C-alpha cells in the first residue's frame, strides 16, 4: 500500500513533527518521508481531508466482540471494521465469549481469526479458569500465544488471595493483571447507581463504595505483591482519589474510564432506557466531574469505549431483564472531544498501547504507518446511521458529539469512512 497524506497536522507528542502541518509518504506500510510539501508520485493514493489531523493509531483497552459463541452480537471481522472506522488501530478484546478465552488454544483462535486486518486484535486472556475466580488460568501459556493481559471481564476477583497470587505469579513474565473494581456483596442485586435517581424510579442501587472498597483492597494487595495492575473502567470519585494516592506512592497501576461513564450521569435513567444499563453503572454529577478531572490530570490513564454489542433480544426487554452493556466505540472520539482538548483526547486514546502491548508508536520516518486520521471541526447528533456494529444497543443515540474520524492506516492498509 502506497499513499501520500496531504496537509495533515501531526498530533503526537513523541514526534519531532508534533504540531506541524506535513505531508506523509507511506510505502508498503512504512512511513518513508515526512515533509512540509511532498509531490504525489504515480501509483500512490493521495489522501486529503478538510481539517485533517493525524496521530499515532488509537488503542482501545476494553472491547467485547462476541465471537466465538455470540456471533449474533458481533463477529471478529465486523468488530475489527467497526474499530477501524472509529479510529482504532488496536483493540484489546475481552475474554467474555463462549467458551471463555482461558487457554492458549482459545487465544490462538482469536489471533488466527483476526490476522490480516487493518485493526489489530490483542486478546485479553481470562485471569481465572472459566472466569470463575477460583484457580488461575494458564496465563504464561496464553501470553505465549498472544494474550496481552489477564482479567475476567466485569467479574471481580472475589478472592483476595487469588489476586495476590496472580500479581506475584505474573511478575515472572511481565504480565498485566486486570481486576474489575466491584465488591459483589455490597453491590448485591443493584442494577444502577445508588442515588437520587435509583430512589425515584425504584431500581435497586449499587453503592459507589462497592467499587472503591474493591479498589482500596486491590491497591493494598498491589503494594504488598508488586506486579502490574490495571483497574478497568472506574466510575466513582473515591476510586479516582485512591488511585491518585497509589500512583503517588509509586505503585505500578493504571486505570481507565469508559466513555459513557464520562459522558452520562444516572439522570438519563428516568425513562428506563436499557441502553443506559451498563457496568459500572452511570454515576452522579459529582462522580462524573471527578472522572473528568481524573482524565485531565492523568490519574485515569486511558479512555475506553468498553464497547459491548448486545443483540436486540437482550435489550428490548424490561430493565431488570436486560443485559448490561452499550456499544460506544463509534462515539468514543466524538464524545471525548466534548470533554477535553484534541491533544488530551489523543493521549488518552493512544497510551493504552504501551501498557498492553509494550510497544510504542510514533509518527517518524522509518516507523510502521500506524495512524488515525480525524478532524476536530463541527458537531453532530449521533444517530443510527453512525452505528457500524452488528448490534444497535448504543447509549449515545441522540447525543451531541464533536469532530469526525476519517479512518486509519495500519498493517499496510487504509480504511476510510465514506
Amino acid at each position, binding site marked *: 500500500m502506497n499513499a501520500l497524506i496531504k496537509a495533515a497536522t501531526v498530533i503526537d507528542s513523541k514526534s519531532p513533527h508534533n504540531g506541524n502541518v506535513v505531508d506523509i509518504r507511506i510505502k508498503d506500510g512504512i512511513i518513508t518521508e515526512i515533509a512540509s510539501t511532498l509531490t504525489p508520485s504515480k501509483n500512490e493514493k493521495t489522501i486529503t481531508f478538510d481539517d485533517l489531523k493525524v496521530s499515532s493509531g488509537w488503542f482501545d483497552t476494553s472491547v467485547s466482540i462476541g465471537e466465538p459463541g455470540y456471533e449474533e452480537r458481533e463477529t471478529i471481522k465486523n468488530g475489527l471494521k467497526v474499530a477501524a472506522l472509529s479510529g482504532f488501530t488496536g483493540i484489546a478484546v475481552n475474554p467474555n465469549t463462549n467458551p471463555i478465552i482461558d487457554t492458549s488454544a482459545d487465544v490462538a483462535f482469536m489471533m488466527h481469526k483476526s490476522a490480516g486486518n487493518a485493526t489489530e486484535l490483542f486478546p485479553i486472556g481470562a485471569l481465572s479458569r472459566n472466569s470463575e475466580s477460583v484457580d488461575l488460568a494458564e496465563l504464561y501459556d496464553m501470553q505465549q500465544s498472544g494474550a496481552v493481559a489477564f482479567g475476567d471481564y466485569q467479574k471481580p476477583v472475589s478472592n483476595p488471595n487469588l489476586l495476590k497470587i496472580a500479581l506475584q505469579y505474573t511478575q515472572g513474565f511481565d504480565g498485566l493483571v486486570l481486576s474489575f473494581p466491584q465488591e459483589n456483596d455490597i453491590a448485591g442485586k443493584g442494577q444502577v447507581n445508588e442515588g437520587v435517581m435509583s430512589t425515584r424510579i*425504584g431500581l435497586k442501587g449499587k453503592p459507589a463504595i462497592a467499587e472503591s472498597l474493591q479498589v482500596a483492597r486491590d491497591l493494598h494487595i498491589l503494594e504488598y505483591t508488586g506486579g502490574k495492575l490495571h483497574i478497568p473502567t472506574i466510575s466513582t470519585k473515591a476510586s479516582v482519589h485512591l488511585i491518585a494516592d497509589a500512583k503517588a506512592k509509586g505503585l505500578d497501576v493504571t486505570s481507565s474510564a469508559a466513555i459513557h461513564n464520562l459522558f452520562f450521569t444516572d439522570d438519563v435513567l428516568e425513562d428506563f432506557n436499557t441502553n443506559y444499563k451498563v457496568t459500572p453503572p452511570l454515576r452522579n454529577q459529582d462522580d462524573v466531574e471527578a472522572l473528568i478531572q481524573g482524565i485531565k490530570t492523568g490519574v485515569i490513564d486511558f479512555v475506553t469505549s468498553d464497547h459491548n454489542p448486545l443483540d436486540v433480544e437482550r435489550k428490548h426487554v424490561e*430493565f431488570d431483564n436486560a443485559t448490561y452493556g452499550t456499544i460506544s466505540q463509534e462515539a468514543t472520539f466524538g464524545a471525548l472531544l466534548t470533554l477535553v482538548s484534541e491533544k488530551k483526547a489523543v493521549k488518552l486514546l493512544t497510551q493504552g498501547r504501551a501498557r498492553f502491548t509494550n510497544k510504542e508508536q510514533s509518527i517518524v520516518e522509518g516507523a510502521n504507518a500506524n495512524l488515525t486520521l480525524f478532524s476536530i471541526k463541527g458537531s453532530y447528533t449521533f444517530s443510527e446511521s453512525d452505528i457500524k456494529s452488528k448490534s444497535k444497543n448504543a447509549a449515545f443515540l441522540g447525543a451531541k458529539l464533536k469532530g469526525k474520524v476519517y479512518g486509519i492506516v495500519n498493517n499496510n492498509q487504509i480504511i476510510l469512512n465514506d
Partner: protein
Amino acid sequence: MAELSVNHLLGIKYITAADIDLIFKTADHFKEVINRPIKKVPSLRDITIANLFFENSTRTKLSFELAEKRLSADVINFSAAASSVKKGETLIDTVNNILSMKVDMVVMRHPNPGAGVFLSKHIKASIVNAGDGAHEHPTQALLDSYSIRERLGEVAGKNVVIVGDILHSRVALSNIYALKLQGANVKVCGPKTLIPKYIESLGVEVELDLRKALEWCDVANMLRVQNERMDISYFPSTREYTQQYGVNKEILESLDKEIVIMHPGPINRGVEITSDVADSGQAIILDQVQNGVAVRMAVIYLLASKIQ
C-alpha cells in the same frame, strides 16, 4: 369536560395535582354508585380490558376486576403462573398477542420496575400500572389519599408517616409522590436498613423512632415487611422488628391524640400492627379496600374516555 393529562397511569410521578383532584371527584360519584342496590353503570360497554398479573395479587386484582365490571367493561384475566411467560415468551410478545384480540386497556402488575413505562412505548393500548417492582403502585396511593381525605376532610397540611419496609415498597414511593403533590407533610419510619439512603431527596424526613413518628403524625400508614423481596436479612428477627416498629393498642393509647391507622394489606397481624389495632375504630383499613374500587373505577373511566 375535564380530562387527565396522561393517556396511561404509569405512576404518580407522571400525573399532576389536578389529575388527582379529577380522579377523586370522579371517584366520589362512583362511590355513590357502588352503594346503590344496582351497583353498575353502563359507561364502558364498548371497552375491553385485560388484567395482566405477572406477580401474585389477591386484593388488587379483585379490586380492579370489580371496578371494571361495575363500569360494564368486558374483562379478560391473565396470570403469569399459567402462561407462556414461563415458556420464555417476551413481555412485548405476550402483550401484543393479547392486544391482537382487540383489547383497549391493559392493567398490569409486574415484578420489574419500569415494566409499565417500557410497555407504554411499544404497544397501542392504555396502560394502568397495578404495581411494578419497587417502583410505583399508583392506584394504591390514590386510594390511600382518597381515604385520608374521606376521614380527615383533606390531605393538604396533614402529617403522614409511612412505617416499615420503605426500601422494597412501591406503595411507599407512590404514596410519597401523591402526598407531596397534595401538600401533605411526609415522614418515613423504620429500621435504617429498610430506608433508601437517598430518600430525603424526595422531600420527606426520616424518623427512626416509632414513638416520635406517631406523636408527630395525623396518619400512620403501616407497610408490610416484604420478606419475598429481600436478598439478605435487613433485621435480626421479626420479634425484634415488632419490638421497635410494631404498633399496638398500648402505644396508641399513650398518645395525646387519636391518629388514623392505615395498611395497604395484606396485614401480618402481630408484626406491623396487632389485631386490636387493625380492628379498632382508628383503623381505616377496610375503608381503603372499599375506596379502592371507586378510585379504580374513576381511573379506568377517565383513561377510557381518552380512548374514545
